[in-house]
């Protein structure tokens, strides 16, 4: 499946950069992340708990960052396996500082799915992936605003990342409008956007300001 889109962060590139530097924000923007470790140059390993309807399990994901042109662009390659199936793919990410002080992020990628995810989740995957990405960015946006505000007020930033349930409910509501009629069919997928965002986290983590 193809994944592409853009998102505008309401903050200067510097603040976006700093926020992404904070692993706590990033990891908690994606509920289910159990671990994220640097295992080699630009290679990360992560464990994430994934739920697709009644099927759930831990996903082992490897992420490779390549073609880095800091602070503009990079390519992320993802390889994840777990009980719900497997994911393989890669995507290009671009960051553009805007004249109005915001930061535009563009992403474009191709992902192959297998296992239960592919055979049962087909019709859900597209719209859920988009919804998940949107929600994750909104969550990061809020964190960014809090961070900027805290800085201006000279205090430590406090943000409450959404609980897994709130996150899931928001995604379900999103999907419910477009795809689902029945209350029962709640399908929530974390993997693809999660790994993509993991990649963004990882990218920024690997480019700490001196």
């Amino acid at each position, binding site marked *: 499946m193809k994944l592409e889109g853009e998102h505008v962060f309401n903050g200067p590139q510097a603040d976006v950069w700093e926020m992404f530097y904070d692993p706590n924000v990033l990891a908690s923007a994606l509920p289910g992340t159990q671990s994220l470790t640097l295992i080699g140059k630009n290679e990360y390993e992560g464990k994430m708990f994934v739920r697709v309807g009644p099927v*759930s399990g831990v996903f082992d994901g490897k992420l490779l960052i390549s073609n880095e042109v800091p602070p503009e662009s990079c390519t992320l390659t993802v390889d994840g396996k777990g*009980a719900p199936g497997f994911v393989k793919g890669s995507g290009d990410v671009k960051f553009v500082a805007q004249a109005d002080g915001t930061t535009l992020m563009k992403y474009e990628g191709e992902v192959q799915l*297998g296992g*239960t995810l*592919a*055979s*049962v989740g*087909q*019709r859900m995957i597209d719209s859920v992936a988009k919804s998940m990405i949107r929600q994750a960015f909104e969550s990061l946006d809020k964190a960014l605003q809090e961070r900027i505000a805290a800085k201006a007020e000279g205090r430590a930033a406090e943000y409450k990342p959404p609980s897994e349930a709130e996150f899931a409910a928001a995604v379900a509501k999103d999907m419910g409008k477009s795809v689902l009629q029945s209350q029962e069919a709640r399908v929530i997928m974390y993997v693809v956007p999660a790994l993509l965002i993991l990649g963004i986290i990882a990218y920024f983590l690997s480019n700490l300001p001196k």
Partner: protein
Amino acid sequence: MSYKIIGQRITRNEDAQLLSGSALFLDDVHLPGMLHAAFLRSDYAHARIKSIDTSAAKQRSGVVAVYTAEDFGDYWHVGPLQVPPPLAIAGAKFNARPLPPIAKDKVRFSGEPLAVVIAESRYIAEDALADIIVDLEPLPAVTDLEKALQPESPLVHDDLGTNLAADVQQEHGNYAEAAAKADVIIKRRFYIDRGASGAMENRGFIVDWDEKTQTMTCWSNCQAPIPLRNTIAANLGLAASQVRLITPFVGGGFGPKIMTSQADDVLLPWISMKLKRPIKWVEDRRENFLATTSERDQIHDVEIALTKDGRILGLKDVFYHNTGAYDPYGMTVPLNTQTHTTGSYDIPNFYTRVIMVFTNKMVVTPVRGAGRMYGVYVMERMMDIAAKELNIDPVELRLKNMIQPNQYPYKTGIIGQDFVENVLDSGNYPATLKKAVEIIGYEKFIKEEQPRLRAEGKKVGIGVVCFVEGTAVGPYEGARVNVDGSGKVTVVTGISTQGQGHFTSFAQLAAEQLGVSVRDVRVITGDTGHFHWGAGTFASRGATVAGNAIYSAATKVRNKALQLASSILEAPVEELELADGVVRIADVPSKFITLGELAMRANPTRGTIDPNMEPGLEATAFYGPPHGATGQGAVAMIVEVDPETYLVKIKRFVIAHDCGTVINPLILDGQIMGGVSMGIGNAFYERMVYDENGQLLNASLMDYLLPVSTDMPPKMELAHFSTPSPLNQLGAKGIGEAGAIPTPAAFASAVENALKDEGVEILESPLDPCRLWQLVQQKQ
């Protein structure tokens, strides 16, 4: 032959139990101490197994055991082949690759079992599947039939050096000579795909090894209980008499339940013996799509040679057939394609070649129609295409080439799935075609209705096709009929039942001969504890093959009752009749003896008996046909294609068919309609979609569309003919698959006719709205 009970439209004996929800299906069986199995299945279609770590799974509370191929030691074995190779066909090449019960070293299809977990509940067993860590090295998958035979293709079976599973050529007459004489030669390529059987009940297996009695009881919803029981006993080194296999009520078979020697029935009996506990396994729907057999694609390159006035001189068909990753079911499906291509037509020269190919998908075995549908599809499409090219009416062209009623037995020269030459035994093919055409009002539609509706912008079309259905093949079936001391009649046969009404139709056969009510005959099917000779329910053979055995056994019991009664009532046999549960003197009905009384007299508990006599009113009989009996029919269909959405609505559906003597017309109608609904599914709604990695993308009913009530025509119009088969005493033929065989061809024909202004030519199946739109776009 006129019957009193055979041929009657009798409602079914089995209904009350099924309707009240008190019928026993496989998953309803509960045994004390029962454990539950779940299979870990490969996500990859093609991969090398590097390691499987089950240690975490074994630690999970509630898990009793976890096994991989290694854990079975010497017991792990491949196969056996379910169906022998076609050695009867000269020059046949066949590479046998039976199905392993669980993958070792390599996985060859997505869904192939890697490990089995035994736990206290299915919930826990499935939890434990997620604990198993599998390290697979993915390999490129083989999915395309033609690319699979290219030298650079990855190999499904490395040791074979090729992906060629079989190559079988057959010829009747000489096609090359026919082509040389022809005025017109037309060539086309067809791509035909099918799908899953979609039975409402998934596969399952229960096994209970009783250490104390040293016996094993199995429950299975399979279509071949006796061969399966024999295989299980042989696998485990047990005597066949130590193993009993019972088929309870089965929620639909349609073919795939004939496939045995799979993970469940090979491994679970061994595990049950080891753990000394009963084990149950029931498939879920996704497993059914991935790892239960289905039918797949064929690619046909067809050539037809005709004279300019429409006489077919010859037909040539070279086709690829996808057998999946293994070929345990031999060549049954493609051999059926070969024997059903020329079908209803007298074509003196026919060359057919099947190139069977291994791919990284689950195995192909029969699904209702079992390969016949592909042959009918290509023939009927070529007929329509030839009719257009020669400017002859398509019905006229068919009638011109049809086998006539005086040409039977018609030897086709092509060997079929039963390894003997396919001989058409009887029929009146022109009659069924003419009837279908008459009922649908063909002339009126073509001349008046169609032009009128088209002028209004409605894309309506009509399609007419013919088909044959080879049924009732050997080897044999058997039955035992018994009247007990209380007068109750029991019929026992080895085949199993999946909803086709055996408990009634078989009762009718016995009731006819014994003069009892159909309601008073108890029928037992598919329980090796009661009867252990027979092959199984497939190829529409149950009613004819088992039916004839039952009828023969009932006749023997009848004759014995008459003999006995004759001496008791002191009247010659010719003056006696069996009716109302008694034997009586026809003219003096007050002189009678009940069947129960006779049964008791035939089974004394003291004294002596005639040394040549067998006790009781009981008889066993077997029946094996010399070759299959062939049914035939014609379908006429009118459709309307929506010019914007390309959804197809069936406006009328007519099927005229001939299946010889009919045991129960009510059950017959049900079988035909059911087959038609499956054919409609195959024509327009069903398709198993695989990606280039061999991933099945629609392994659920959400995305694999089974037709529902609103997808059916407003009414299915059935017309019946009955040309008795000379092959058996009942004159019967099978009918179970008839509805499914011609429908995709009829659908294509009607849709092509509806889109004739757009100049679309349909050379594929299934169709769907997107594809129709594409075909129309391509032409513009």
